[in-house]
């Protein structure tokens, strides 16, 4: 059996274990000198604590506690704000992050709209070329050329030599 943790020996001492646990600890103590030593140390500590004099509470303790419990708590946001007031640099940094997070989607939306204008025609040429493949006499090599050129313009990397 493994050595008992201090908490289990303490519980044994306080008779808080189940009968089965208590019997197991008892059997282990019979064969384990170090646990017996630990149990003895705990007993000494318990006796020492029991011998200490009890100090009375100050008379104002209970009235003070009741007043504190009855006082209305400040709203959470006031407590949160008070925390930032004491740390202005951190507050500024956090504000900058929030503004950036708000601006990025707006900027992206604008960029997307500009890109849509740039690739709009190419997207439609591409989609038409794909539809034109239904024509049995259409040249697939030429349609593929139209589609692949449009693919490049759609991702903003037009083929270099020929500019419309």
């Amino acid at each position, binding site marked *: 059996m493994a050595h008992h943790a201090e908490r289990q020996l303490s519980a044994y001492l306080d008779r808080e274990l189940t009968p089965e646990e208590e019997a197991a600890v008892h059997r282990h103590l019979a064969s384990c000198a170090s646990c017996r030593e630990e149990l003895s140390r705990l007993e000494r500590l318990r006796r020492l604590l029991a011998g200490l004099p009890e100090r009375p509470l100050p008379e104002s303790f209970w009235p003070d506690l009741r007043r504190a419990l009855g006082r209305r708590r400040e709203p959470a946001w006031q407590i949160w704000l008070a925390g930032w007031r004491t740390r202005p640099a951190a507050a500024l940094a956090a504000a900058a992050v929030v503004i950036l997070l708000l601006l990025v989607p707006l900027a992206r*939306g604008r960029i*997307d*709209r*500009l*890109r*849509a*204008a*740039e*690739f*709009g*025609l190419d*997207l*439609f*040429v*591409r*989609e*038409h*070329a*794909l*539809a*034109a*493949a*239904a*024509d*049995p*006499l*259409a*040249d*697939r*090599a*030429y*349609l*593929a*050329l*139209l*589609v*692949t050129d449009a*693919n*490049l313009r*759609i*991702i903003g*990397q037009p*083929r*270099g*030599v*020929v*500019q*419309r």
Partner: protein
Amino acid sequence: MSRRPAAVLAALVLLPAAALALLQLPVAGRQAGGAPDRAAAVLYSALVAPALIDYEGTKLISTRRGGRVETVVVLEAHKRPNQTRLEFLSPESLAGRLVVDSGVEAWHYEPSLHTVFQGPTLAPTGRPAEQLRALQAAYRLVLVGTEEVIGRPTFVLALEGRSGDRRLLWIDQATGVPLRVEERSGAESVYTAYFTRVSFSLNLPPALFRFRAPAGARTFALFAAEDEGMTLEEVQRAVGFRVRTPGTLPPGVRFDRAQTVRYGPLVAAALRYTDGTAPISVFQVSARRVDGRAWEAVGEAVTAGGVSLRLVELGDIRVLTWEEGGLRLVVVGARPRAVLLALAARLSGR
């Protein structure tokens, strides 16, 4: 040539047999006389060829882009029925670009950016017999004669549209593969593509048509078109504005389908019209969501129905764009300028 000569021979027998069988079929729009039927048989051989034969060759594409002519050289490999591998060789800005189309989805690798794009396939759908009927309805077929292209005998077939547009195909007599294609608008050639070298096979290795992304490449999945076959009301709900439709359509053009196209903040209504084969796309997007100034800078100024438009020429594909009533409208199609302008005029003020 092939490591399976018997299979190649079988294909060479099947193609003329299919063409001959076609002559016995009651084809809608068949014209009187023997020549149109023969033209239809030749065209049919071109429509069934992708399902019967593999090939690889060097193709040269010459087309107008933004007021100048651009010539592109590409190594093209096709594996039946609908797989394609394209390696672009020139110009310098395209060198190394790779497109692998599995028939289900397409992968585009751009070496200069070490970037991969995943997108929808460019494989055509539909059965050859239906495709032939649609082409016969949209074009007058004329078998012009025979010529040699890179030493191979071809049928020269003209497809003449109602609006003065003309497609010329040089169709390999043995395999049905078009070896040369020209698109003309009036007297002007707007697009030419031809093989400078080609070899036919029935056994190109499957691994050639499997895409493996290079290590470390970033990948973009671009599937912008949403559900096909939406009703106009569903499209309007998705885009949040009333979608314009033309009161009448130019002759030979009919409504095909409606859907939405979405990319990032942009949600557009996409209406597809067709002459039976080549689509015309009409895109509409709220002008509030885009910066109109960037659109105005492109193309040539034109007018239709009293509205100022911008016209961009991309080879045989033309793009019309304008802003009206809080909407940005874009009309795209490989159709003559007059057809697209007529459609734009019918959309304007609706």
